[in-house]
């Protein structure tokens, strides 16, 4: 009896191990939760579906005509459009725009024209923050030096702007800000993922990049000028003639 039992037991162990597998094996089976009562509560967490709402989303869109917490209320002139319909208000607050006011810092515009200047103090920290954000969000397409040769262009993304070209050097800060926030041509807006101070930090960093690529020796502080002489020398002499 003990012998038969041992054989059955061994077979059973082999069977279980072969079905259940070992720890860490890749599996498509969702994790087992034996008593999920409090583990899965009837509450809405971020970015999860919910049966409670008709469209099945836990996260809700802002109700049309309301202002999210922390956002400025629309100015009275915007509350009603010229023909008396509320389409202007509905249009403006249909989507989360991440910034509420209509001032220069939020729109890049002074009146109806693009403004210029960074509406936040530009310090070394600002530029470093701008560098950080630029590398995360912008360098993928525009490249680390802004010449429009980011990694995405190697995989077939076309129409990426070269931030070093004269047109973009001459562009106002406000328009660059608006491009970061709302996009331009084939570039979609990054306003949804980059907050207002960071957008301006990026503008400041883009200005720094533009300067860095067109800098002359005179832009270098006296103390450090000597260290640039050797590497700068070939640039100042005419390049070898090409056929």
């Amino acid at each position, binding site marked *: 009896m003990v012998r038969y039992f041992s054989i059955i037991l061994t077979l059973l162990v082999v069977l279980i191990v072969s079905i*259940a597998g070992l720890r860490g094996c890749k599996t*498509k089976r969702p994790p087992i939760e034996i008593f999920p009562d*409090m583990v899965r509560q009837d509450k809405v967490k971020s970015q999860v579906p919910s049966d409670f709402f008709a469209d099945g989303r836990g996260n809700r869109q802002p109700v049309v005509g309301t202002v999210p917490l922390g956002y400025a209320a629309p100015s009275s002139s915007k509350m009603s459009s010229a023909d008396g319909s509320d389409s202007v208000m509905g249009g403006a607050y249909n989507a989360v725009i991440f910034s509420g006011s209509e001032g220069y810092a939020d729109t890049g515009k002074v009146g109806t024209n693009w403004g210029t200047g960074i509406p936040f103090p530009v310090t070394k920290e600002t530029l470093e923050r701008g560098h950080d954000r630029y590398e995360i969000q912008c360098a993928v397409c525009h490249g680390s030096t802004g010449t429009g040769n980011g990694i995405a262009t190697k995989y*077939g993304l076309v129409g990426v702007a070269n931030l070093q070209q004269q047109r973009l050097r001459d562009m106002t800060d406000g328009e660059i800000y608006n491009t970061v926030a709302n996009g331009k041509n084939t570039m979609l807006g990054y306003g*949804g993922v980059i907050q207002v101070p960071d957008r301006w930090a990026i503008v400041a960093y883009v200005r720094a990049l533009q300067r860095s690529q067109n800098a002359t020796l005179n832009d270098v502080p006296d103390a450090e000028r000597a260290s640039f002489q050797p590497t700068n020398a070939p640039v100042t002499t005419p390049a070898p003639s090409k056929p």
Partner: protein
Amino acid sequence: MSNFFPRWANWVPLQLLVCVLLAGAPVTLGIWYYFTPKYTRVGYQPDQPVPFSHALHVKQLGMDCRYCHSFVEVAGHSNLPNTQTCINCHGEGKILGNSPRLAPVRESWKTGQPIPWVQIHRLPDYAYFNHAVHVNRGVSCYSCHGKINEMAQVYEAQSLSMKWCLDCHRSPENFLRPPSEVFNMDWHPASDTEQREMGLKFKADWKINPPVNCGGCHR
């Protein structure tokens, strides 16, 4: 009446005892081995609606985690990217703009319905984890998500059990890294002793005192 039971029946109680003892070992071992998130959670690798590869985007292209998980530094919840983030590069006329594998992305962009990504790392609803406080204090993505930059299809690398959380909360010096390397999945300390020395320094500098009381995570 005296021969009602055969002689071998005298051995039955002893044999039963041996069988129970024999069975006890594998049952104990089985429960120890299988009844743990190390088995139930680790390795969970569901199919996603779009075969997005972290290995391609992070390892090969060198993209930063925060290009997509844009609010991980400021929010408790590390967001999945919205559809627009994919469309930035994969819109029609852009990279793989007609690929059938990206059809759900284009569909979502057209209809406004979210892409039904399958959540892999699910904490119990009574445990409150905050991504921002961890990544802002030198806990790398790597510590919890493993070598995600090498995963063509994401799987759960760590058990996320309470003991596993407490291992780090009790000795954070074994995991803390320089803030500049938090999002660098390829950075590893040269040795365990270096990690410890560095970690102890960060722990003192940043006054890191992770909660180990119940209310720290179960509020």
